[in-house]
């Protein structure tokens, strides 16, 4: 019988290797293939039992896809499979130098927001994307190639900080738009 039980991990669900670097197109096509089978729209005329199973599966497939397509969530999830927690709540364990950089970022975002300067915000956004990309590369090497989970966790923690900055920039655009 098939090995596709409901509780298996997200990588197995899409039949992909559990690595940080992944084939995005393959993930997309497997996601679509799976939803084509399990989506509630395919079951709305069937029995309640089938509708319920469909809703559970479609929810699960969406959760898995959202986790694997998001670079920060994928990092955290992969670490959790290796028993590592990124302890995102506590910033006391971050290097001081990194925290100072964070403060500088915040000030720059704040300044651009107050000045309603969308050009400056866009520049910050671009620079941040660049930095996040760099960190992701670093993380991929640490976890996929070197299997150094402790170091990978620290790099993921940094990624999480940068993600918060990205959220701040997004909401700054919203604020200026109003």
């Amino acid at each position, binding site marked *: 019988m098939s090995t596709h039980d409901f509780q298996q991990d997200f990588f197995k669900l899409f039949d992909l290797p559990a690595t940080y670097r992944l084939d995005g197109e393959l993930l997309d096509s497997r996601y679509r293939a*799976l939803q084509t089978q399990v*989506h509630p729209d395919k079951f*709305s*005329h069937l029995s309640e039992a089938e509708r*319920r199973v469909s809703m559970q599966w479609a*929810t699960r497939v969406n959760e898995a896809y959202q986790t694997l397509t998001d670079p920060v969530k994928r990092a955290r999830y992969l670490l959790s499979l290796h028993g590592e927690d990124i302890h995102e709540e506590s910033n006391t364990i971050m290097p001081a130098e990194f925290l100072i950089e964070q403060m500088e970022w915040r000030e720059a975002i704040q300044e651009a927001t107050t000045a309603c300067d969308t050009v400056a915000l866009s520049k910050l956004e671009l620079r941040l994307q660049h930095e996040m990309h760099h960190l992701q590369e670093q993380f991929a090497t640490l976890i996929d190639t070197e299997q150094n989970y402790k170091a990978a966790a620290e790099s993921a923690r940094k990624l999480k900080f940068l993600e918060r900055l990205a959220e701040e920039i997004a909401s700054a655009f919203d604020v200026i738009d109003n």
Partner: protein
Amino acid sequence: MLLATSLKMALLQISEPGLSTAPHEHRLAIGIDLGTTNSLVATVRNGISVVLNDANGRALLPSVVRYLPDGSVQAGEAAQMAQSEDPTNTIVSVKRFMGRGLNDIGDISSIPYRFVDAQGMVQLRTVTGVKSPVEVSAEILKVLRARAEEALGGGLVGAVITVPAYFDDAQRQATKDAARLAGLNVLRLLNEPTAAAIAYGLDNAAEGIYAVYDLGGGTFDISILKLSKGVFEVLATNGNSALGGDDFDHRIYCWLLEKNNLSALEPSDTRLLLMRARAAKEELTEHDQTRVTAILRSGDAIDNVLMQQDFHEMSQNLVERTLQPVRRALRDAKLTVADIKGVVMVGGATRMPQVQRAVAEFFNQTPLTNLDPDKVVALGAAIQANVLAGNRSAEDWLLLDVIPLSLGIETMGGLVEKIIPRNSTIPTARAQDFTTFKDGQTALSVHVVQGERELVSDCRSLAKFELRGIPPMVAGAARIRITFQVDADGLLSVSARELSKGVEAHITVKPSYGLSDAEISRMLQDSTQHAQGDMQARTLREQQVEANQLLEAVQSALEQDGATLLDEAGRTRIRTGMDGLRAMLQTSDHLAIKRAITQLNEVTMAFAQARMDKSVSRALGGRKLTDLET
């Protein structure tokens, strides 16, 4: 090798999910666009989606309902004609009040109704009593349902009802309740821009990223969709559920007041001028200027000429206000204007040249207007209804939609903790753990909200409930898991569980503005068309239909997979359940039928899971199939 290949083919053929092996009759299903200004009904006939007209050949039903002193109700043209003569009992644009409290509605000075501020949703006092917007909407739906039943000559399996993509949970729930009240089985609530994308995309074999700009009578939506190989994937949606063509009318109305030094009009004059304003707006779509004339109750005459240029200037900031959500949707989708292959225009208000110009300028391309902006939503809804009813068409497509607004709960200090972010693909679920903050605390109150703001007071309150029976522990020791589930209609249910001591207190809330089953049945009984006997007959009929559908579905599942996925005992259990339900169908006891339905659903649960498991394995192809072959 050859043998394995042919075996694979055979497996592929027998396990097409949901496709009944036995040919069945065409199930009648409809799509309804329940609009602010007009409503429509459409269906798929001989594989083509068509709008159903009334006896006079009119497709659009004005969304206007009038309550008369003798207790009768008019909906549509007749009611629309009476709006200036009987303004307080003639409800127009009721969609603006769906799932809304009085303080959500804003400026009510030009609205002639007698509002009653009720808990949750505003109510309207009419000559036949206090009516909720849900009841008013149900009157519109009843007319469309009757139109469809007459045209199609049979009972309907169900309907897809469209809602603005930016409708929150309260507004969606209210729409679903209205449909139930009108005696419609809701197959799905479908977002209006998504419905339009289906109709447009299937018609034009569109591939790529499209924006749907939907400016209706009272609501504005923008959705960004990726169309590829039969998949309609909504990437982001945004909008304003209180901005539409009505507001453009209102600008002209205010201009008329100013030009004629008018203030504090009687309700009938307000209605009259709003009607004239709308006519002027429509004139200005084709002409450079228009003349507005009216005789007020006082006998005073109004006679003004409005230039197109002036109208464009006075409505410029309304047009501007639609572009804000467009920018946000693009940002959420992580896209820029250059990524958009086409812009589909939906809603009657997109006929205004200043709207088309602004959209063209923003997207740097001419918007697509080759489909009727009034009809495209209903046409798409009908196509979806046809699929959901089980009439599979040859081309197989999949729709992946999102939730428009974030969902969260109130935490300390009146702040919102987001649990499900906006633009999450549905169905979706998210669980979050919380704890107690006092020693010995045995209850926890949970306040569910929807919106993007940080403060609870700036978001929409959806439900409040209390989780009791938490075992007394020191502060911070309890673990309370709160789970949000959003279904494919975009509707939320919330449950909470205490985990730490294995004690399970479980509650599922229905948002507080929604109607309970008891309220629905009271409203049904209240309405004059449904005497007590009718009610019971109707319930029985509904149970019989459901039972027969279930039997058909289980039978076809057994034929497809019974031999491979079940053992003898499993098959016997299901057959016994089916026999039990068939026996109950011979009686006219609707409660007994309902019980037998529940029983059959329970005994088929494991079978349903096994079937899904098989479909999933098949979806990934290759390697997994070899497991099945051995």
